[in-house]
């Protein structure tokens, strides 16, 4: 059995990655084991099993999908668990985090990206497995925004012209990765039809379920190129 481990910063990233894995691999061919990784102090690491989806048996591909509980924990958790992943014969390790968020009392911005990239490999072992670090710019919701057809599945009134008018920005052509707060863009649009996009599981899951994964998989490359290290890593693992 081939094994892959994906470490993500939170619940939205976990739900999206789970769906993406099942869509790309097919639910019969892959098992996704989900857990939360918390703590790590003197009282130890708290790893909570969240669930298991996909194939229950006879699968050749197994993915450990870990919600690390914060963008500054993703790489640290990979570093801490790297040796055991190697010992357990994992072949692919991926980390997914975004840019938004506060650090040391300061909000990270698009201008901080070069500095973040500079240290992208720092502190995490590279041999025998080189972890792939995926940086969602500015946050994963930029990918949802780019897959603009989902708006009409959330509510039929949210046509592309309507969304463009609401945002003053065309998500089918505009630079979604340069939007400072894509999750707020989603919320702004949803609220015009009496709905909301909030960082709670029920809300994010509804959007994740409304996405067209053919578009995510094939059609976003030019618009949200930073999703492709993730898709490439999944493809490499499945092949």
């Amino acid at each position, binding site marked *: 059995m081939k094994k892959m481990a994906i470490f993500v910063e939170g619940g939205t990233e976990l739900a999206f990655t789970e769906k993406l894995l099942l869509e790309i691999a097919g639910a019969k061919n892959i098992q996704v084991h989900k857990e939360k990784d918390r703590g790590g102090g*003197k*009282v130890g690491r708290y790893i909570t099993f969240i669930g298991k989806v996909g194939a229950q048996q006879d699968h050749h591909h197994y993915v450990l999908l870990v919600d690390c509980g914060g963008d500054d924990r993703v790489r640290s958790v990979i570093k801490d668990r790297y040796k055991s992943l190697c010992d357990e014969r994992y072949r692919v390790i991926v980390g997914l985090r975004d840019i938004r968020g506060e650090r040391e*009392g300061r909000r990270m911005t698009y201008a901080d990206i*070069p500095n973040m990239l500079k*240290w*992208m490999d*720092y502190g995490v072992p590279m041999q025998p497995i080189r972890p792939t670090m995926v940086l969602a710019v500015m946050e994963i919701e930029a990918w949802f925004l780019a897959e603009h057809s989902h708006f009409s599945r959330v509510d039929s009134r949210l046509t592309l012209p309507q969304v463009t008018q609401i945002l003053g920005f065309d998500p089918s052509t505009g630079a979604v990765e340069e939007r400072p707060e894509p999750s707020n863009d989603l919320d702004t649009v949803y609220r015009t039809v009496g709905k909301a996009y909030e960082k709670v599981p029920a809300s994010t899951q509804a959007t994740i379920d409304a996405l067209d994964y053919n578009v995510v998989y094939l059609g976003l490359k*030019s618009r949200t190129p*930073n999703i492709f290290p993730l898709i490439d890593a999944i493809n490499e693992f499945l092949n």
Partner: protein
Amino acid sequence: MKLKLLSFIDYVGLPYEWKFNGLLLQDRNLVVGKNASGKSRILSSINDLASLLTKRVQLSASAGAMSWEADFADEKGITYKYELKINQSAVLSEKFSRDGLTLLNRPADGVATIQTKQPGTDATQPMDFKIPNHELAAVNKMDLIQTPFLEPLLKWGDEVFYYRFGTTMGQDRYGMATPGQVNFDPLKHDENSVMPKWILGHQKYPDAFPNALKDDMRRLGYEVERVNLEKTTLLNAPEGMMTLTVKEKGLARPTEQHFMSQGMFRAYSILVHANYFALVRECGCLLIDDIGEGLDFERSCILIDLLSEKARAGKFQLVMSTNDRFIMNHVPLKDWTIVKRESGQSRIYNYENSKKHFDEFKFTGLNNFDFLAMDFLNEDIDLDDTEGSPNEENGNLCRGGN
């Protein structure tokens, strides 16, 4: 006044001399470092100085040779400096100055001098003196009329409180009550004096004190309905022996202090002290070694937040130490003091003296603990932002086009 800067030497001149220089202190401080780096000794060196100034400890033949150099500042911006060198039971030298003006000078060899205020005027004049060498001149010569300038220093010493969170924190201390009153000697600086503090807090603030304790324990995740002092049901306890109790929702009866978990009692105990200090304003500096020890990670972080709030309310300085990674991750790097042991000294690193490393670390995407664990202070961070990246493969953002 608050302690701003401290240097300390232990076992002065001996092969096993140990020292630290330039411990810069702000309102909230988290002293971090690996085991045996000197964290606890740093906190205890502050407490030792305060204890000497208030005669909580006496110089004795068993004491080693020690040296302190402490800088203070008060709310008006007046600065004070106190230097003290001792060897066993003798004071070797002592000096105190205010805003750069020496007011007390007791050199190692020679005659000690102190500026004394003249009756009815603001003028001072030097006065030579000689006192027994086992006494501190700052204590011995304190006089509210003649040498009032010493008062803030002694007051600072009196307002330093030191707790080792990894100890029992008073869980094994009980008290006896007589009808109508509770007779406890409030052992002001005893780290185990949780019960006297509870009683005093309750007497002075019968509503605010217990309510604050209840609220704080609830924030820590304990569903506390009532805090109290009651007769213990402990087997073989003498009649009238009292225990602190906490009544939690869903439990039929209050939990006595000896039946509380160690972590819960430590948290309760430090909150008794901190709430007392926040209300009575008798604390200037709260030292807590090994903060969070024995508590789970979420409660450790909430406790740090609670203590920070009490410190702000009570206007006292908070100096905590830890080597727990979760606590480090919770406290911003700007509040950190990193201690690194290098042979005979502990080197001190903080935002002031290592700003570039502290600022750069936030871009690594690692949690704060890794700043210490990976020795980021030793990283060469003067890298070209556009070329020379340590990350050749991942070091480019994927650029898209429309």
